[in-house]
């Protein structure tokens, strides 16, 4: 079974490589390599670093909630990047990509932190001795 899955995967990957070869240039290669590099050198250390700060500064019963809120904020910020950073966007179209995304991002982030705070409060009430 493992060999069947592996062989199928290798064949599909080879087909993709065959389709990709005529398109490859420096720009495309950088976009291919860029994802893992940016993740390993920027995103992961950033998230880990913020986690350490939270472990250091946030009282124990609130740590998990603050971490989840931080992670959700991070996801929302990543999703907002192509909407807020648009020097390479096409001409504007009526009714598309034309909302106020900065306000939207702030509203969504606010809602996330409210939700996280509510869940943390409820959990805290249920276990009043947690963290002692």
């Amino acid at each position, binding site marked *: 079974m493992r060999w069947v899955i592996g062989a199928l995967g290798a064949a599909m990957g080879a087909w993709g490589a065959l*389709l990709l070869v005529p*398109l490859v240039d420096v720009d495309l290669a950088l976009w291919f390599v860029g994802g893992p590099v940016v993740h390993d050198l920027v995103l992961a250390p950033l998230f880990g670093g913020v986690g350490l700060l939270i472990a250091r500064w946030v009282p124990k019963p609130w740590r998990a909630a603050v971490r989840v809120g931080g992670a959700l904020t991070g996801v929302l910020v990543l999703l907002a990047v192509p909407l807020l950073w648009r020097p390479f966007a096409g001409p504007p179209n009526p009714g598309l990509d034309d909302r106020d995304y900065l306000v939207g991002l702030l509203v969504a982030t606010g809602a996330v932190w409210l939700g996280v705070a509510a869940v943390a409060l409820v959990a805290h009430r249920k276990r009043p001795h947690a963290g002692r």
Partner: protein
Amino acid sequence: MKRTSSPHTATRVGRWLGIAFGLCFVTGLLSHYIQHPPGWFAWPTRPVGLYRVTQGVHVTSGVAAIPLLLAKLWTVHPKLFERPVVRSLPHALERASIFVLLGASFFELVTGLFNATQNYPWRFFFPPAHHAVAWIAVGALLVHVAVKLPLMRTPAEEVRRGTLSRRGFLLATGVAAAVAVLATAGGTVPWLRTASVLGTRSVRLPVNRTASAAGVSAVDGDWRLTVGSRRFSRAELEALPQTTAELPIACVEGWSASARWTGVPVRDLLALAGVEPGDVRVESLERDGLYRASTLPAAHARDPLTLLALAVDGETLSLDHGYPCRLIAPSRPGVTQTKWVARLEVVR
């Protein structure tokens, strides 16, 4: 406290990610084949919103995959610092295959997200690159599954480590995927339009390419629609029996919007012109541009709901919506719903 990688949690998140990638791959291939149909491929005309659903699933599953991929990498992050870097030839191959998997996965998710917002910070042509790398991503994913299959039965860790419990981590990952979907899905799900603050669509029926962007200026009374050897003025089209149908425009970029279109069925026009039905080439007044013409497959050309629309929601088409007439066919990508139509021609 030293974090170690956690095969059980990695497998659980990996399974969700696998489902998201699988949905994204299949719906993406469908969209590719609808636009570049190989001989063996046929796409149904019913239900009318079929493409709306498949392409909505494509973009939504891609968005959900972003937090899932990040969570998955977080569970295995300690393995990045494994020493020695390479233990053996199989180990080197495995690490290389994971690099290919991650390169291809990030490429697909990031370029897809940017393309969905019509933002192109690269020089390559998006559709063929996104299609080719999709095969590499799914191929590398299957190789990865084959390599890790024995680890998938690892029992859950008993000890609680770090700030979040194992269940807490999985729950937070699920919530992150749900938040990402909620924040964006309003582009295609009507009742989420206001709630999805990061959705692309801000009005009920957007215009994806304006007349001025397409280089089409006001159309005068000399305009005629050519079908075979017949020519129709707009008044003649208005005098023909009209069909009204609720049909969606479903863009490859993932947004979609339904509206009530009124116009003349394409098959009636072909019959009036006395041409045998078949695949129909639809040409626009647009001088150039990638999507100035489209080919309507024979099944769609025969369909009574494939219209040359003259009005939308009871009002004459505006120039931006394709005046004097536009194609609107059930279950087709938006880029093939040609606007400012000037000619219909049966090609085979």
